[in-house]
């Protein structure tokens, strides 16, 4: 997960045309026993990608050498379910920098952004175009331009603007994370605490009886 900061991604893409992909599919719970952030890419989409005996499933897109690239294209409501950030780590670890969909689940979107994995939301109609293009021709190139906030399907030139809040954009472009920012305002946090009704904020005291 060394890739901190994102600017323009110009790449072929992998199509995963399934709706409501939940994070249990992205990375099943039994692979969450690790205590580091690394190596989750191996088990990305584990049960769709491998048979129970460990052999790859031929018809799953990640096992098809025709499709490759730094962009994953997914159908609506990608990343729903569990909050496990391991899902974002697994996608990033497998070499993706961008996920395109028409709709992302909230927590996944935050997790992705916190890991310099850019979630790009496009219209349903554009998504359909993208799937058609890359499913037909795996060499199709897509350009995601973060500074301009545009995504372009190169062969047809169709282009769309995408949303991202300014703060997050700055973070991604410069490789800052939220913790850097929050640490920089620690004085303000402490002064908030001292003005905050203190009874709202009691510590969990040790009861000492056990």
């Amino acid at each position, binding site marked *: 997960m060394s890739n901190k900061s994102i600017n323009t991604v110009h790449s072929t893409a992998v199509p995963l045309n399934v709706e409501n992909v939940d994070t249990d599919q992205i990375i*099943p719970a039994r692979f969450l026993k690790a205590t580091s952030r690394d190596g989750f890419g191996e088990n990305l989409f584990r049960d769709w990608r491998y048979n129970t005996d460990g052999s790859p499933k031929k018809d799953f897109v990640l096992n098809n050498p025709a499709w490759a690239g730094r962009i994953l294209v997914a159908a609506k409501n990608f990343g729903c379910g569990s909050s496990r950030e391991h899902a974002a780590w697994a996608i990033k670890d497998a070499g993706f920098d961008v996920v395109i969909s028409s709709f992302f689940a909230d927590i996944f979107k935050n997790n992705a952004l916190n890991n310099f994995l850019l979630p790009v939301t496009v219209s349903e109609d554009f998504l359909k175009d993208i799937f058609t293009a890359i499913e037909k021709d795996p060499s199709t190139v897509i350009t995601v331009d973060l500074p301009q906030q545009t995504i372009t399907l190169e062969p047809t030139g169709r282009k769309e603007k995408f949303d991202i809040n300014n703060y997050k954009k700055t973070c991604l472009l410069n490789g800052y994370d939220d913790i850097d920012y929050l640490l920089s305002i620690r004085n303000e946090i402490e002064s908030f605490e001292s003005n905050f009704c203190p009874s*709202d904020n009691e510590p969990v005291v040790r009861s000492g009886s056990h």
Partner: protein
Amino acid sequence: MAKTLFEKIWDSHVVKTIEGGPSVLYIDKHFIHEVTSPQAFKGLEKRGMEVFRPRQIVATADHNVPTIDQHLPIKDELSRLQVQQLIANCARYGVELYGLGHPYQGIVHVIGPELGITQPGMTIVCGDSHTSTHGAFGAIAFGIGTSEVEMVMATQCLLQSKPKLMRINVEGQLGKGVVSKDIILYIIGMTTASGATGYFVEYAGSAIRNLSMEARMTICNMSIEMGARGGMIAPDQTTFAYIKGREFAPKGAEWDKKVAQWSELYSDPDARFDIEINIDAADIEPMVTYGTNPGMGIGITGHIPALTEISEKEKPGFLKSLAYMGLQAGAPIKGRKVDYVFIGSCTNSRIEDLRMVASFVKGRHKSKDTEVWIVPGSKQVEKQAIEEGLDKVFEEAGFHLRQPGCSACLGMNEDKIPAGKYCISTSNRNFEGRQGPNARTLLASPLTAALAAITGEVADVREYL
């Protein structure tokens, strides 16, 4: 200006708002567990930092613990290491841990409320999507990722954009045999698995008011299953009565002061919601899911949608889901044989759930073809169940009362449903492989699950009451 319940709590916790960006939200309580915290602690260590407010964090081990022989060392090596890591991290950073063997150990969303840590008006987070459970007390509670866990450890704050607000009003009387799990499965069926994405939900209306705290928690718990950031219910006398006297609840004069503050936490009559949904409680039947997301639920007397009822666009997902489940479009759900019954998880493993199951199965015996696991939500629930003699009732019915943890809700420990088998489960997710590779999950209420244990199939509890 008129404010919603959400806005009252949110506004009082905003440290500052970044121009054109998110707000810095102050977090009162932070729960952590063994699966989503190790990388956050590692992050702190890398930065050479201490936990900013360790006394606002409570830790437990729940996701990855065995539910039998908890006094023995954990057999699975990776699981054991993960739990040991939590112990070491909590000791190193001064965080209170209710680990295995502790009388307070249990599923994080069960222990917070039962210890009185969860209180109205708070902001509460945890690296777990079902943190929404705590919203039942009139708190802003939501799940976060591990980077955010690290943020809260480092600064007690999070960067958050204010969500849109939805209110769901459930009015009227629930029918017999219909419980809170049915209400929420009905709501998710209506809104779909993504219908509330971007929203924070407030549940209101007379049917919600009449629910116990346990039942309210079941509802708020599953808010995330329709994509919502969280769900909440305004605190009232039921809430205060539940909290009073609990371990970490305010005491004496402090209690009175708190209750006065908490009593201000409701949505003002003219407060504005982005969406309001109205539901008549009488329309809700006992519910069961047939598919692979919690939005795919139907009334017990209903049938799985026929192909003609599904739009072209949804067909591939629908067919994939039915193929996984081994079910037919258009078929009834009633009468479907089940192999396993799982009663547990942060949705339905509280004492009230166990009592409900026990009172239903008393004097009955499980079907010879079903395997029944009852997994209490916490050590305290387990203890109380034994004190009340519920364990005897379960034993006589042929059920196994196990030890507390997440268990077959996510199949991270050895409690997995075998491939191809049907499990009627009181948990919250029926995703592919959630309860074990190729396991098939039917979500239902504790009552419907208990009945299935007896009959060996999906049946209508109303015919047995």
